[in-house]
C-alpha cells in the first residue's frame, strides 16, 4: 500500500511589494510547477501573498544546533557594532 514519497518543498511568500519573502511552511509536490500551485492553494487563501518561492527542502543546508554557541555567541560581546555604544553630546542634535 505504501506509495513512493513525493518530494518536500519549503514555501516562501512575499506578503506585499517591498517586503522580503518569508518562510511560511512546507508541502509535498511532484515538481516545482505543482509545488507553486499547491503553495498558492495552501498558503494564500486569504490574500497572504503577492509572490511565492518554492525550494526543494533537500537543497537547504542548515546550521547544526549543536554549534549554536560557536556560531552566534561571538556577536554578543561586540557591543561596538551598535550605535548606542558611541557617545555623541546632546548639543550635536540627532545623529
Amino acid at each position, binding site marked *: 500500500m505504501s506509495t513512493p514519497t513525493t518530494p518536500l518543498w519549503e514555501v516562501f511568500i512575499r506578503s506585499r511589494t517591498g517586503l522580503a519573502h518569508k518562510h511560511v511552511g512546507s508541502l509535498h509536490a*511532484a515538481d516545482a510547477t505543482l509545488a507553486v500551485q499547491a503553495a498558492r492553494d495552501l498558503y494564500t*487563501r486569504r490574500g497572504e501573498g503577492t509572490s511565492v518561492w518554492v525550494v526543494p527542502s533537500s537543497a537547504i543546508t542548515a546550521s547544526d*544546533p549543536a554549534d549554536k554557541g560557536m556560531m552566534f555567541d561571538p556577536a554578543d560581546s561586540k557591543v561596538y557594532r551598535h550605535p548606542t555604544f558611541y557617545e555623541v553630546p546632546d548639543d550635536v542634535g540627532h545623529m
Partner: protein
Amino acid sequence: MYAQSLNQQVEGTTGPEDAEAAARFQARIDAEERIEPNDWMPAAYRRTLVRQISQHAHSEIVGMLPEGNWITRAPSLRRKAALIAKVQDECGHGMYLYAAAETLGVTREQLVDELLAGKAKYSSIFNYPTLTWADIGAIGWLVDGAAIMNQIPLCRCSYGPYSRAMIRVCKEESFHQRQGYEIMLTLARGTAAQKAMAQDALNRWWWPCLMMFGPPDAQSQHSDTSTRWKIKRFSNDALRQKFVDATVPQAHFLGLTLPDPALRFNEATSHWEFGEIDWSEFKQVLAGNGPCNRDRMAARRAAHANGEWVRDAALAYAAKERARAAAAAGAA
C-alpha cells in the same frame, strides 16, 4: 521541513537516554524556549508529538467528510461558498499539521498509511452523521468552538513547528465558528420547523462535543508528561468547563435548550455545572463502533485509492522532465 537528514542523525545517536541532555532539555522547556526539529529531545517527547500531531492532522482530514456531505445541498450560494471555504481550510489544517509531524522524522506516506490501515486515531466527533442542514451550523458553532478551545493553548506548545502551525490554524478557525453560529441563528429565528431542526442538531451534537476534550483528568493517560513538557497547558476538564461556560449563554441567545437537565449556573464559582457524560459512548466510538466509523474510513480509503493514478502520473511526469532536462544539458 528542512534539514531532515540532521534530524535522523540525532535520532540515531540518541541511544540510551542521556540524563544530562534530558535535564538541559527540561530546563529549556521551563524557560519557555521553543524546541526546534534538529534540537536534542527525549525519544518519548518525539513519540508523543508524532502521535498527537498526526492524530490532529487525521482529524482535520476526516473532519472534511461530515461537512462535505452538505456542500451540494447548501441552501444558498452564500452558504455554499462559505462551506466550501471552510472545508478547504480544514484540508489546509491537515496539511500544516502533517508537515509539522514530518519534522520529527516520519514521512507523510507513513502517516497516511497508518490512518488508512486503521492504526491511527482521529477525533471521535467525526464519527457522527450530519443528518440535516442544521448539523452544519452545529458543527461550526460547537465542534469548531471546542476545537478552538483546545487549539488556542497549543499555539504556545513547546514544539516550534506545532505551535506555529496552530497559530495559523487558529487564525482561520474563527470564521468557522462564526459561520456556524450564523446558520444556527438564522434557523432559530426562522419557521417553527427550522427552529426545531436547530434544536435537534444541538441535542445530538452537545454531548459528543463535550467528549471532544477527552477523558476526565482522573483517567487521562498522557496528561502528566505532556504538561511537564508544555505540550498541554490546560487539563481536559479545565478546557471542557471553559467551553461549557462560553457556549451555554450562546445557546440561550439562540433561544435553544441544552439537552442536559442537570445544567445549572453556580453563582459562587461563576461556572455552569453540567451532568454526567456517558463515557461508555465515547469508548465505543473510539473503539470503532460509532455511527460512521466504517463510512469515514471507507471514504478515506476510496479517496486515496482513486487518487493513486494522479500521484503516480505527477511523479512520472516529473521524472520524465528531469531526464529531458539532463539530456538537453548533456547535448549542449
